[in-house]
């Protein structure tokens, strides 16, 4: 690939790509997201590749491995264009049939189609599947159409036209104004108005003229993987967004901070950046506009706290991820003490969208104060696990039931957790809450980065509070007393509660500690750490009372409060549980009822798992 020297050349390049691709009568896109990778989608891709060559179809069938399509429950996924036929759970053995019947025969392979659970009907097209129907995938839809390691795919879909427009038709102030009127708010968690940040950074004086734009791809919230899929599947959307932002702010250097647990994302990103540089879309004098911009990638080391802006910057500088006080904002003095603008992956990806769609169109999506869409990772006790993109203002109920398909195995919904370790649990009574920044704050949670974990009757809410405290204690940097010592003491109390060893006074102490940690911690991690505890106390007080006063765990989770017993009437004496018990707590002879020695029992539940006669009871 050779450098594109000017705007007219760029337009020519795109036109050439377009006409070159007209020869293809069909495109096979194999989902290459991490979930599908875990299901070995690479084998499916290889099978397609060899079969296509074997049949001499290389010049008419375009095969590509794409980013995450979002419907992770149904992977490996394959979509056939132009008809948009959606195939689920494809294995390498299915490939010859797909080629025979769909590509050559023009028919669908029935058994690989998605089946509508409400009426059993087979659905042909992706957009008609209930999971996708209510979504508005303005950010994610490119994931299914482009190979992230081929910049041409992005360009032929209109990629980098927003950057070209910004560089040649708009002034920096106009761009900030557009982002302002579009109402873009940060997608990393707090929802701070993006244009305000950009403006502060633009106005800040750089002592040596150097400013930075940063992308936070640390995505530490457990259960959230939207940023990964976006960056992995469509890295150019972020690169383009950062270039536009840099131009608006007056920066020429960017950094993308990626957590090291995302090796595939890193590879795709580095490849994308190399290709952009080759074409001259990154680097010196982009498209002969006079604007220079390049990006360096920085890798994390396994620290949730490095998602906090000042800790992230410290990590880039090669120091420990210890946050600092932010009385002087990072917009004025951030990375290397220079004016720095940090935004989340999804925020950056929205920028080209705003320029391409136009401010009015973008602002018409969502609610008045929360415009645009938001990507959520809908996971946990939910039928349709995956990545969901909806306009702001969609209700939790619509997301969980209409898109998510509700709770599996006939269980009852109990709560949905949003905002990760900084967020809270929302009960059934509030399911009609529209999802937007302010409404979620009002109910004691927050949008966060987009993790949405669904919980059912088998989830203990006190255990969930404990889980988050354990997580935060592990991840605290340890600098300040309230967070380090306060969370540790909160952890002790919650552990006592789950073990049935706590008194009601300790609940008051827990609340007092929560207040102190919130009010006096140095950084956002500590300040929001008590949220899961506080929101579960707010909405699930009865469960706390049961643990404290009755020493009971209604969900059957807290080990100290449950016991496993064998019903002698149902037990056939098959010896399965006895053989599987890891601590030898089961006694009994063949064909005689077995018993569990409670003093040995570790409550692991393996006996319940392996019994085929439902003779093991959990109390």
């Amino acid at each position, binding site marked *: 690939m050779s450098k594109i020297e000017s705007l007219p050349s760029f337009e020519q390049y795109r036109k050439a790509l377009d006409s070159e691709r007209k020869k293809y009568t069909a495109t096979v896109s194999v989902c290459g997201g991490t979930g599908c990778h875990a299901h070995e989608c690479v084998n499916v891709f290889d099978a397609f590749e060899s079969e296509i060559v074997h049949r001499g179809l290389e010049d008419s069938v375009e095969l590509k491995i794409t980013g995450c399509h979002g419907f992770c429950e149904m992977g490996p996924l394959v979509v056939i264009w132009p008809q948009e036929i959606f195939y689920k759970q494809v294995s390498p053995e299915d490939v010859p049939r797909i080629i025979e019947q769909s590509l050559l025969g023009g028919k669908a392979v029935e058994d690989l189609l998605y089946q509508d659970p409400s009426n059993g009907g087979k659905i042909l097209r992706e957009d008609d599947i209930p999971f996708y129907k209510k979504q508005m995938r303005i950010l994610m839809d490119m994931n299914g159409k482009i190979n992230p390691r081929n910049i041409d795919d992005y360009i032929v879909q209109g990629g980098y036209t927003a950057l070209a427009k910004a560089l040649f038709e708009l002034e920096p102030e106009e761009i900030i104004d557009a982002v302002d009127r579009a109402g873009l708010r940060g997608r990393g968690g707090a929802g701070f108005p993006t244009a305000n940040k950009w403006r502060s950074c633009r106005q800040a004086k750089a002592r040596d003229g150097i400013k930075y734009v940063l992308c936070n791809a640390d995505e530490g919230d457990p259960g959230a993987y939207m940023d990964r899929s976006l960056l992995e599947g469509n890295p150019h959307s972020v690169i383009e967004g950062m270039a536009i932002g840099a131009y608006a702010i007056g920066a020429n250097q960017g950094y993308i901070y990626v957590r090291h647990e995302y090796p595939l994302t890193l590879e795709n990103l580095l490849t994308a950046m190399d290709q952009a540089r080759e074409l001259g879309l990154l680097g010196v004098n982009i498209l002969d506009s006079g604007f220079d911009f390049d990006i360096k990638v920085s890798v994390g*080391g396994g620290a949730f706290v490095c998602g906090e802006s000042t800790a992230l910057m410290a990590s880039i500088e090669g120091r420990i991820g210890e946050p600092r006080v932010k009385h002087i904002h990072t917009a004025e003095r951030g990375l290397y003490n220079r004016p720095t603008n940090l935004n989340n992956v999804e925020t950056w990806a929205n920028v080209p969208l705003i320029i391409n769609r136009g401010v009015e169109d973008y602002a018409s999506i969502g609610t008045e104060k929360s415009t645009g869409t938001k990507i959520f990772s809908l996971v946990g006790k939910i039928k349709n696990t995956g990545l969901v993109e909806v306009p702001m203002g969609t209700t939790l109920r619509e997301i969980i039931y209409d898109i998510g398909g509700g709770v599996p195995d006939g269980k009852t919904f109990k709560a949905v957790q949003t905002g990760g370790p900084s967020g809270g649990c929302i009960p059934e009574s509030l399911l009609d809450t529209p999802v937007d920044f302010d409404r979620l704050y009002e109910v004691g949670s927050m949008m966060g980065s987009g993790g949405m*974990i669904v919980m059912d009757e088998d989830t203990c809410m006190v255990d969930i509070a404990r889980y988050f405290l354990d997580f935060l204690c592990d991840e605290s940097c340890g600098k300040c007393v309230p967070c380090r010592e306060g969370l540790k003491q909160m952890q002790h109390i919650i552990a006592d509660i789950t073990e049935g060893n706590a008194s009601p006074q300790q609940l008051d102490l827990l609340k007092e500690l929560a207040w102190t940690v919130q009010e006096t911690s140095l950084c956002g991690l500590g300040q929001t750490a008590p949220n899961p505890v506080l929101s579960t106390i707010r909405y699930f007080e009865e469960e706390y009372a049961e643990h404290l006063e009755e020493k009971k765990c209604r969900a059957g989770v807290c080990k100290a409060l449950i016991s496993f017993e064998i019903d002698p009437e149902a037990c056939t004496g098959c010896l399965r549980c006895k053989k*599987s018990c890891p601590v030898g707590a089961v006694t009994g002879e063949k064909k005689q009822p077995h018993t569990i020695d409670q003093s040995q029992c570790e409550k692991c539940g393996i006996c319940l798992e392996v019994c085929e006669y439902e003779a093991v009871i959990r109390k």
Partner: protein
Amino acid sequence: MEVNFSPTLTAIRKHGIGRSNLIPILHEIQGEYRYLPEDSLRSVADIMDIPLVDVYGVATFFTSFSLRPKGKHQVTTCMGTACHVRKSGGVLEEAKRFLGVEPGQTTEDMLFSLETVNCLGACAMGPIVVIDGKYHGQVTPAKVKKLLQDVADAERVPEYVEDRVAAVL
């Protein structure tokens, strides 16, 4: 253990001497040795002109680095919220009990290292256990016991065969 300095030098040459390259360099060294040897860290401090306390601080702050050698088989359980809600806690308990170590530790025979990770991004398959890079989904305490037993059996094949022979004879 004799430490060959080349991987350290290679890493520094590849990334550069600037302090911002410290973390990527440590990742490379760890990738080579499966841990960060003391001698390597001292070399890094000398060559990159970073105070040793700071290099040591970074090496001990970030959990992806280990100052002690890791085992032959890497066992990682996902502790993400979605996996937790699907009862990954029980899976970790069983892994701990079977291997006899806590997360972050290595078995005495240096065969297994047990780790936890905060989220792998494959929540549809949860609970997840990764053994030597291979993902296993919908894992239960019974399943993880079997998975680990299989690896252990494969490791101890000579003795295992002898045990079986002895049992039969």
